[in-house]
């Protein structure tokens, strides 16, 4: 994902802003990292350049 995506995304649960943490970057592209809700503290992963903003219960279901 590009950092410009931060302008419009939010926590899917409470719609508050997200804080970005970058682990790996390739040019402008954020490859691995996480997005943390500034309100509820929920952490959403960025994997393979794609943020996973499924509600936590559905994310866990999908990973199961």
């Amino acid at each position, binding site marked *: 994902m590009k950092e410009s995506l931060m302008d419009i995304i939010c926590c*899917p649960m409470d719609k508050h802003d997200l804080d970005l943490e970058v682990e790996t970057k390739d040019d402008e592209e954020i490859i691995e990292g996480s997005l943390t809700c500034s309100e509820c503290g929920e952490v959403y992963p960025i994997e393979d350049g794609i943020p996973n903003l499924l509600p936590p219960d559905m994310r866990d279901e999908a990973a199961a």
Partner: protein
Amino acid sequence: MSASEEFDSWAAEGRDKGMEDRHWHTTKHALARMPVEAGDTVVDLGTGSGYALRALRETAGIGRGYGLDGAPEMARNAADYTDDDAVGFLVGDFDALPFADESVDHVFSMEAFYYARDPIHTLEEIKRILRPGGTFYCAVNYYEENEASHEWQDNIAIEMTRWNRREYREAFREAGLHVAEQDTIADREIEIPPAEAFPTDDWETRAAMVDRYRTWGTLLTVGVKP
């Protein structure tokens, strides 16, 4: 099986590309009607291969296009199919859209909306993320009047919502969207074999196939955020 798993397996089998090819026949007409301006931000719900956003970048010069899909495999494939910096993909669910209030100019969705667990709530979410005057272009092939589509539910574990035209209009209004247009867009491109060829693997009669594609096709309902 969860929706993610179901559609991840579709993506792994390459069905995303197959859908792109088939849906394009009618999707392109819906996209051509959208009042998008150069620089607009457009979200595609249930983006599949992401082709709608690629098309809007080319034809309308949208500023940014974001494709949301519940299946990580779909989003990964879609990201692979483009190297356009202005197009991005994310994993998310129709019931809990991860976009800020009034952050999006237009929302598009093809053959995906009826998978929403709580479709009225999804419409409310769409209304929330659109800026005033933004539109929701909702295109579906699975709907009440399109009788051949009814049996699709038998082949998929996820519950699908089968509204008729009036129910779509009513649901949009219930969620607070103005209804600006409703139309059925015929698929004039799919080849329909001569009568002798029927029954085929997929069709009992030629009349049923004509009904499905030429008479009904894709139901488009357009909502506007007040």
